[in-house]
């Protein structure tokens, strides 16, 4: 059986990253609920893990799945407050708002406002440090598609951040 660290250690080391991932992914008001769901699911299957390598990426994979479930359930708007309307609106009119958001440390709102696949790909790549092939698996597509999604997401953000 694998030697696994105490679960509390995972929570202390990666809790903040998981929460950040979820805030950017589902928005601040739902993030805590999904955070709880993610951790309960993780704790439930934890003892059956075959090895203790890359536990951070394991947690973020679960967080990703829970966020997708949440978006699919679709009971609420998938986008974080505010940013949705801004990004969807007239381009010229919103550059200033985006700049301001970035300066206010709310760049994550813009990530959260990306189209679903791009958002997931960007989050998994930059919060999860995952390979394109792994991201492809998680998004039910290919490594190439994952790479494209990351780049499209980044281009969109770059255009709005430059």
């Amino acid at each position: 059986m694998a030697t696994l660290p105490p679960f509390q250690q995972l929570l202390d080391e990666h809790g903040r990253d998981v929460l950040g991932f979820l805030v950017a992914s589902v928005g601040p008001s739902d993030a805590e609920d999904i955070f709880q769901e993610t951790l309960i699911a993780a704790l439930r299957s934890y003892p059956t893990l075959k090895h203790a390598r890359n536990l951070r990426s394991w947690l973020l994979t679960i967080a990703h799945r829970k966020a997708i479930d949440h978006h699919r359930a679709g009971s609420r708007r998938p986008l974080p407050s505010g940013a949705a309307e801004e990004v969807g609106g007239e381009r010229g009119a919103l550059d200033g708002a985006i700049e301001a958001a970035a300066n206010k440390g709310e760049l994550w709102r813009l990530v959260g406002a990306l189209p679903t696949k791009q958002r997931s790909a960007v989050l998994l790549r930059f919060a999860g440090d995952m390979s394109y092939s792994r991201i492809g698996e998680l998004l039910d597509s290919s490594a190439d598609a994952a790479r494209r999604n990351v780049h499209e997401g980044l281009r969109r953000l770059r255009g709005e951040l430059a």
Partner: protein
Amino acid sequence: MSTTSEEKIRRAIRDAGGVVDLERAKREFSARAEDEGLLEVAYASVDSPFGEMLLAATDRGVVKLALPTHAGRELKPDLVLTELATAVSPRVLEAPAKLDPARRELDLYFEGKLKRFGVPVDWRLAKGFTDKVLHQVARIPYGRTLSYGEVAAKAGNPRAFRAAGTACGANPVPLIVPCHRVVQASGDPGNYGGGPEMKRALLELEGSLPASLDARAPRRRSRGATR
């Protein structure tokens, strides 16, 4: 896209967590885990007159009490928790409320107001002869002592006084299983996981430090001088 922008995004995602109270969310999680029956080892840090201790419990009872020092080394909570994750379950979470009853009893004990612990003990970390010895140790009343040989005899092997000493040293739940009440046949307190001074202090608290030792004035003076 430049590396700096990628780094900006990385940082932004990490910082996004800051809009939710992480510590509160962690506490909430620990409570939920318990509700779901997924909290297998609850632990908390506990103050004592001797320093900070670590207390851990399963649903059977207190499974581990790590003293402020063990065998001359300062308590390393991470090591204790890793040991618990391996020996009991990796579902280890900080959950102070679960340890409140044991913590309260320990507080009262240190104040001299509790003579007998009522919290249940989970014996699973004591194996074989150690388990037998410690079950005998658990029966020694407050304010009384037995020698290592006497305890070995009660555990079924009168000649195993050394093994009885080893068993006491391996006690996963000291204080609650009072191995400090096992002393040398000469009456000298002898060794203790938490250090001989702690043992002496506990025996003093319980009023069972042998009179002959109390009377050794020069030794007490020299001890005083080193402090």
